């Protein structure tokens, strides 16, 4: 009987090590399955990258590496519902000491037909670099996966569910494409679209064009003779490939606006932002659109001018934002979390805790980081919860993740165990 008891120690010197036993079991741990009630004492068995069994009385297979789970909590692998993790930041190309030159403007766009700010065909997996430091940092914070979007332009490209470990980007992809990420950027005054109105008109025309393109190509494919062929348009191909549309909406006005606009697109819509959801609940709930809530809550800027007065509206939004998830849960609206501009694991945890303090249950908060993400993107058949047959992504925490002192002990990604990089946070912090 090969029975290796793996003792977790807070070894500060431990490198980021990937243990690679084929079979792994966490025994006698507290387990949040996300799909069912939490288990106070249970066992999870992982085999060849998949969850084999979970339950209170599941026997530990003879060939398993065992993690003694006393005092530990096992969650489904945390997943960032909208991120750019794994995509290298664009290097600053300006020579040192010189002011960076503004990026050259593309050709001036004269209308929607020029397809400005459009990279709808770009997929996340094309850009993800497995060695990017953001991946290791995310794992250290307990995240096993992220829905990654290329993120530039109005049509910012197609997202993919990426597991946050692997030697090749292709191995990391769990599902793709999952959606088209739309933003409301403008081109400035001189190139279309130069205004928010223009952005709406542009998006509307592109979706009309996409449907027209699809119908024309189908007609052509049936009987090419006697019909002029339809020009290939990569921007429309990208739009058609994505099974859903992500639309930004933070304030009440924006949420109600996007609910109206989203309905026009006649495609599945996911809203992202969500801070003012409580005030726009009637419209959001009626729309049936799920909401990705940005965990980066609006705050008074730390460098704010002490004499600066914020409007009551701004103050109220800051006050209300962390309570948005609880309000969404109460209203029965499907929602998940994304980390926005937060990077440090401690910040992400603190932000999620704020939502809990504002009335969200821990179960609901965990769900918003796990199963709800999978459900919103249509991959709950393979990820998001601790159920037999699903991908073995687990987050193992010493204690309760929402407690400040709790430590992420390990994450398991595709059945492979990774320990947090010790001192990772200290290293990142640049000397002041």
């Amino acid at each position: 009987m090969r029975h290796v008891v793996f003792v977790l120690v807070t070894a500060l010197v431990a490198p980021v090590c990937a243990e690679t036993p084929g079979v792994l079991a966490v025994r006698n741990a507290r387990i949040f399955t996300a799909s069912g009630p939490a288990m106070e004492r249970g066992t999870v068995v992982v085999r060849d990258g998949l969850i084999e069994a979970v339950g209170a009385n599941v026997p530990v297979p003879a060939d398993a590496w065992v993690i003694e789970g006393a005092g530990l909590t096992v969650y489904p692998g945390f997943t960032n519902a909208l991120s750019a993790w794994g995509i290298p930041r664009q290097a600053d190309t300006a020579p040192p000491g010189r002011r960076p030159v503004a990026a050259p403007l593309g050709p001036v766009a004269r209308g929607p037909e020029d397809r400005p700010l459009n990279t709808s065909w770009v997929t996340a997996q094309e850009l993800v670099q497995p060695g990017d430091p953001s991946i290791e940092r995310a794992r250290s914070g307990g995240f096993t996966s992220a829905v990654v979007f290329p993120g530039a332009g109005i049509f910012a490209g197609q997202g993919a569910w990426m597991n946050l470990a692997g030697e090749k980007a292709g191995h990391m992809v769990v599902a793709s494409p999952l959606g088209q990420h739309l933003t409301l950027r403008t081109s400035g005054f001189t190139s279309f679209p130069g205004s928010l109105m223009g952005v709406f008109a542009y998006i509307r025309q592109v979706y009309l064009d996409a449907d027209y393109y699809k119908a024309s190509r189908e007609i052509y494919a049936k009987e090419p003779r006697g019909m002029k062929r339809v020009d290939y348009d990569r921007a429309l191909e990208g739009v058609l490939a994505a099974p859903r549309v992500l639309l930004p909406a933070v304030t009440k006005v924006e949420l109600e606006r996007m609910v109206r606009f989203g309905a026009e697109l006649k495609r599945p819509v996911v809203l992202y932002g969500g801070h003012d959801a409580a005030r726009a609940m009637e419209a959001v709930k009626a729309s049936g659109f799920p909401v990705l809530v940005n965990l980066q809550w609006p705050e008074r800027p730390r460098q704010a001018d002490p004499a600066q007065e914020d409007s009551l509206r701004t103050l109220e939004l800051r006050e209300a934002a962390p309570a948005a998830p609880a309000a969404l849960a109460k209203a029965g609206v499907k929602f998940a979390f994304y980390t926005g501009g937060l990077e440090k694991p401690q910040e992400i945890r603190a932000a999620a805790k704020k939502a809990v303090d504002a009335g969200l249950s821990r179960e609901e908060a965990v769900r918003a980081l796990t199963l709800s993400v999978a459900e919103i993107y249509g991959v709950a058949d393979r990820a998001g919860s601790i159920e037999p047959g699903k991908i073995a992504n687990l987050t193992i925490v010493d204690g309760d993740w929402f407690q400040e002192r709790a430590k992420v002990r390990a994450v398991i990604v595709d059945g492979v165990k990774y320990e947090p990089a010790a001192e990772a946070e200290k290293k990142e912090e640049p000397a002041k």
Partner: protein
Amino acid sequence: MKTLRLLAALAAMAPGALQGADIVIQNAKILTVTRGSLEGSILISNGKIAQVGEKLMIPAGAQVVEASGRYVMPGIIDCHSHIAADAINEGSVSVSSMVGIEDVLNPEDIDIYRALAGGVTTVNVLHGSANAIGGKCSVIKTRWGKSVRELLFEGATPGIKFALGENPKRRGSTPSFGATALRYPATRMGVEDVIREAFTEARKYRAEWKAYDARKAKGERALPPRRDLKLEPLVEILEGKRFVHAHCYRADEILMLLRLADEFGFKIRTLQHVLEGYKVANEIKAHGAGASTFSDWWSYKVEAYDAIPYNAALMHKRGVLVSLNSDSAELMRHLNLEAAKAVKYGGLTEDEALALVTINPAKQLAIDSRVGSIEAGKDADLVLFDQHPLSNYSKVVKVFIDGELYFDREADEKARIKDELRKRSLEEKQKKQTPARRPA
């Protein structure tokens, strides 16, 4: 501080205090605008004006608003404004008819509440004047606190903005934007050409659809034309389904546009600004265009120099349908005083002057069957003033829209204290939550 107070006021406004039940405004001096003035009462029922008269029976359960010594006039209508929108100009192109104000309406814009406090109940929210053919416009009521859908004036004919002269040609001749950013046109001739080309294109587009419909009717296999959101509104103009509101100043360009419209067989619904309208009033009248102008605002650029304060009165006397507009979130809060200037300059009667900001703009927007005067059957959009609205000393006391109380000066003043306190406490709390970072 002013901003703060008004912001505070908005949170406390609780429209609906007088909702539902019948309302009687009694003992008021009623300026109906279309049917003279009287001292008496107005009965509001189901959001409409049910009766107007010197002596009215007060129905059981009706709420009574005592208005002795006060004046009631119809809600003010502003035919040219840029409030309540998160974007105004799509200036990148010379024809931006694909964009629309409705997409970016912001029902929480504080300027709506401020306009309301100045007695404005209906607003034509226009696209800006950066291009020859601008974007689609929205007619709204200042229903503060309601959603976009409820803000929109139900059934109002859609509009679009055109612009002539300096603004649309500036981008063609200002090198500071950069050589690649220069945009045709650079001259008034070019502006005319842009409009002509656009409608030529629109006619072709309409013909394509007609040909397709004909083929389809015969049962032939045909691919429909591609829907073009830029050209669709222009086809609507050709078919008389969309109103053109054209920004203009000079007499020559006004004539150019009227002739161009005649050539393509459509109408200019209103000429906006139209500061030299007094020179070509007969031609404007002949075309059937309305004129929406300022009382005494001019000389802010060369094309706006040859203006006189008698413009509104002179055009009116030639039979042109004239309104006074604001084009400004500030000016729109005292349009009643702008109307008063037409009494001084041009000798209009009080009713004629009030008509410039009520029934006339209502007619220009083709909503005069609903609003613009105090008549039985019309929407109960009413403004109570403490003095005659043409007086400099008058203040708005209450504003009703559809019989609902949307502004009440007393309630507003009370709410400010409460909201000031709320604001201070939130500020303190948030300052503690994110203390200023020390310098490194």
